[in-house]
């Protein structure tokens, strides 16, 4: 068997391979040779073969069959074998395989070897890849070596101990005695590794931390010597003495000084000294300054020192070296919360970093910029950030857009500015904006009542330019649907109003429906917007046509909408104005605000006025027509339930009711009572109860009697809840003319709660030919005397009549 080829030879040969296939062939051939050599248990060439195997492993080829051979090499007495064997172990073995445990005995022996370089190999291997079991077995040996006077071994033992502690934290205690005089060493290697060991122990155990605090003076002294001592060629790096040791000491001081006044004070001077005296022309000096700044910011340093630290960071920001700038931005980001004002001073430099070429620097500068935005600098900062948004990489756009929205929400100086900013974001980064921004923006727009005309105009113009950005298109179509009337009326206070015709608007919206750029969600938005315009525009026929076309759309969502809207046109046309009225101002709930509205429809938009129920549109109308036929069985009163909720909330304050229950008012009011279809489940069900009331024993009373209008109250206790009084009003008209548009409203004192259900009709026929009934429910938990203020409005003989009255003559049984 010829001698296996040398390592260098193999490397040279493999490098001559011109293709991957050729290389693989060579490797396979050599592997086969190596395998047979291993089988022969050849001691002489084992080392050479394993070395070759390691090379092939680095190229990416499997080498597991060499694992045991590494162990044999480690057990050999030849230093060369041990060197390669340990290297092989570190490269090929890992702690998941049981094979590695076989190493333990060898390492133990080698830790006690007569030659320090062999001991060194063992320590290195254990410290690099020792498993928990191995560490447990060999911790004692390591601890012994930690106490040796041989600095070559001591420094290695210290780092090996660090590894042991990381693997088996419980063993930390056993190294404590050996640490006693580690810091009195002169040898820098031992000092450095000792500081690392102490750092590890302090980080892991608060007890150790407290114990080692007493070392602060010693550490300060060592650091001082390093700075003050003259040139030491052995440890010098660009004029600085042992920067590695300085940085490690500073880091340990940081841990020891954190949260401790005395320690922090003891290190104050040295920190100031390092901060002012360190040479900053090279990276190494800046590395030390960086660590110093981190330490100053973390411990309880006095304010002068903190300002010094922030100023160092500020200087870093102006450094040509981008690494330094990066590090500065990272540190400033950490301190911006605690030292906000100091960081603000460097705001302009930070903003300049937005224009840096490096991606990481840009990202940090962006995060920091958002952290620095406040009420004073919002306008200037936003200009810069919007400019950044224009030109930044796509990976930033989503975060930047969200940041802009948040900042705008918090600090917007005016509503117009806010809307302009949002428009800018939507037009420049429209497709990257997060999904939840659309409902949030819609909510914001709804609440800026005075800006509606301006907003819809700007959005319309934006749509004319570009319909590819979905969030923009969705918000725009929603707004056009809501405020289309403002758009064509040509009123706009904020800027020059544009002249738009209904057809042009409808063209745009229909364009969205057919465009390939529109997502299904967007199409839904635009169809609903078109529908809403049917009550705001006069070209109803055109809208009807569009809606009916989509009744056979392939998109199920669109189809359903179109069919329902069609139904609105055909059978339920009288309901259309009510349904498509302006949206009220939305309350932003703590978590998701408008998404609540979103979910209740099961649709992706809050555009339809029907909150909180998915019943088909058809039912209420049938109820309306068959009013008199209805008996207790019907149970889906759609529109009416909006009625009771309104007065119930208003009913608390005696005065409030009459203030905000303004009939036919603008946006805030839900559908005004006057337009309610005259059907009412409860009103009907109370009629049969009419007879029960007498049986219940509470006498009826006359609440109001004036100008021919008489209102009687009849009472009943609600069965499940005796605290609730159910009052039915009966309005009758003794004059010779009908009272039309009759509306009855009531308010009760704060301690009561009132619920007003829909009236049976809003025409009180003349000459007592009929009555209008309406049910009031009063919750009287505190059993106080019932008082009520009522307001009546109606039209009589062509003129509007309005009257207020107090009702105090409630029979005691009604509230006791």
């Amino acid at each position: 068997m010829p001698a296996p080829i040398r390592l260098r030879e193999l490397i040279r040969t493999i490098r001559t391979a011109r293709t991957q296939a050729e290389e693989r062939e060579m490797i396979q051939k050599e592997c086969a040779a190596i395998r047979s050599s291993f089988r022969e248990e050849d001691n002489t060439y084992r080392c050479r073969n394993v070395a070759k195997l390691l090379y092939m492993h680095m190229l990416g080829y499997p080498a597991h069959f060499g694992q045991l051979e590494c162990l044999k090499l480690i057990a050999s007495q030849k230093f060369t074998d041990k060197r390669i064997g340990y290297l092989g172990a570190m490269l090929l073995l890992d702690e998941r395989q049981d094979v590695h445990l076989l190493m333990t005995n060898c390492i133990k022996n080698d830790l006690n070897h007569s030659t320090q370089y062999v001991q060194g190999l063992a320590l290195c291997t254990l410290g690099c890849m020792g498993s928990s079991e191995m560490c447990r077995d060999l911790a004692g040996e390591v601890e012994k070596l930690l106490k040796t006077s041989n600095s070559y071994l001591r420094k290695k033992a210290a780092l090996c101990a660090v590894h042991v502690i990381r693997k088996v934290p419980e063993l930390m205690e056993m190294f404590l005695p050996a640490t006693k005089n580690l810091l009195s060493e002169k040898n820098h290697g031992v000092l450095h590794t000792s500081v690392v060991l102490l750092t590890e122990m302090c980080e892991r155990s608060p007890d150790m931390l407290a114990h080692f605090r007493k070392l602060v003076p010693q550490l300060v002294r060592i650091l001082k010597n390093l700075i003050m001592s003259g040139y030491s060629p052995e440890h010098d790096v660009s004029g600085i003495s042992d920067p590695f040791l300085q940085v490690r000491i500073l880091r340990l001081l940081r841990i020891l000084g954190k949260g401790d006044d005395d320690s922090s004070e003891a290190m104050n001077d040295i920190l100031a000294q390092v901060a002012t005296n360190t040479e900053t022309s090279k990276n190494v000096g800046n590395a030390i300054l960086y660590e110093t700044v981190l330490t100053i910011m973390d411990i309880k340093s006095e304010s002068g020192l903190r300002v010094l630290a922030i100023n160092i960071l500020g200087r870093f920001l102006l450094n040509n070296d981008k690494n330094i700038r990066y590090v500065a931005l990272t540190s400033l980001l950490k301190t911006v919360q605690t030292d906000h004002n100091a960081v603000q001073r460097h705001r302009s430099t930070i903003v300049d970093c937005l224009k840096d070429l490096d991606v990481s620097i840009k990202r940090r500068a962006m995060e920091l910029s958002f952290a620095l935005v406040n009420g004073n600098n919002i306008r200037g900062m936003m200009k810069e950030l919007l400019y950044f948004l224009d030109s930044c990489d796509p990976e930033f756009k989503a975060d930047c857009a969200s940041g802009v929205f948040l900042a705008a929400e918090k600090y917007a100086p005016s509503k117009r500015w806010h809307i302009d900013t949002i428009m800018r974001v939507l037009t420049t980064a429209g497709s990257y904006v997060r999904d939840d921004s659309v409902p949030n923006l819609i909510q914001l727009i709804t609440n800026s009542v005075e800006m509606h005309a301006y907003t819809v105009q700007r959005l319309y113009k934006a749509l004319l330019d570009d319909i590819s950005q979905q969030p923009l298109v969705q918000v725009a179509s929603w707004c056009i649907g809501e405020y289309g009337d403002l758009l064509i009326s040509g009123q706009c206070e904020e800027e020059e109003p544009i002249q738009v015709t209904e057809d042009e608007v409808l063209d745009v919206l229909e364009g969205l429906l057919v465009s390939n750029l529109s997502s299904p969600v967007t199409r839904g938005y635009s169809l609903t917007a078109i529908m809403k315009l049917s009550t705001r525009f006069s070209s109803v026929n055109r809208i009807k046509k569009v809606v009916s076309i989509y009744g056979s759309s392939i998109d199920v969502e669109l189809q359903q909408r179109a069919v329902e809207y069609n139904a609105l046109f055909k059978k339920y046309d009288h309901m259309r104005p009510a349904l498509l009225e302006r949206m009220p101002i939305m309350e932003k709930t703590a978590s998701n605000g408008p998404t609540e509205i979103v979910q209740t429809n099961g649709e992706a938009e809050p555009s339809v006025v029907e909150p909180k129920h998915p019943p088909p549109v058809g039912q209420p109308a049938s109820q309306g027509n068959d009013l008199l036929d209805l008996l207790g069985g019907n149970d889906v009163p759609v529109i009416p339930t909006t009625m009771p909720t309104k007065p119930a909330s208003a009913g608390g304050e005696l005065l409030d009711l009459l203030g905000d229950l303004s009939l036919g008012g603008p946006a805030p009011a839900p559908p005004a009572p006057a337009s309610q279809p005259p059907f009412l489940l409860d009103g009907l069900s109370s009629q049969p109860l009419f007879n029960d009331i007498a049986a219940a024993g509470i006498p009826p009373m006359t609440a109001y009697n004036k100008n021919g209008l008489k209102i009687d109250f009849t009472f009943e206790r609600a069965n499940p809840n005796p605290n609730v009084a159910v009052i039915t009003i009966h309005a009758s008209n003794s004059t010779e003319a009908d009272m039309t548009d009759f509306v009855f409203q009531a308010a009760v004192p704060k301690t009561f709660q009132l619920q007003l259900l829909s009236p049976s009709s809003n025409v009180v026929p003349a000459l007592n030919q009929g009555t209008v009934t309406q049910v009031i429910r009063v919750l009287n938990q505190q059993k106080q005397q019932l008082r009520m203020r009522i307001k009546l409005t109606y039209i009589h003989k062509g003129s509007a009549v309005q009257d207020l009255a107090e009702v105090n003559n409630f029979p005691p049984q009604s509230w006791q």
Partner: protein
Amino acid sequence: MQFMLLFSRQGKLRLQKWYVPLSDKEKKKITRELVQTVLARKPKMCSFLEWRDLKIVYKRYASLYFCCAIEDQDNELITLEIIHRYVELLDKYFGSVCELDIIFNFEKAYFILDEFLLGGEAQETSKKNVLKAIEQADLLQEIKTLMVYQKKYM
């Protein structure tokens, strides 16, 4: 430090030192991804990048990239100094080191690294001491081999 990788501009691995336990498969995956990420960086970019939950510090010396993965609390700037120190050690040892030296003498590159760093931390901050130790160990190799030779042939 969690690991250090040396690779060429074509993405060929020249040295890999792992200080955390990972399976071979994981190591290969990390190596592949990281090499790709670093090679994609433009020359003007800074030497630091965030990758997964680690900080990566890299520097290019001639045709070789030296790449270290450090933890959140480690100092990036001093890591650059560590990389530089390692290059200086190689340079002193090989005499104007180039990539070929490291290819043909990879085991020596490992030995030098293991004399400078242990468990991911610097064990010796004096250049002189590291080189002295390597020198002595090399000598030990020679002597033992010589003794074998002498035993066999004399």
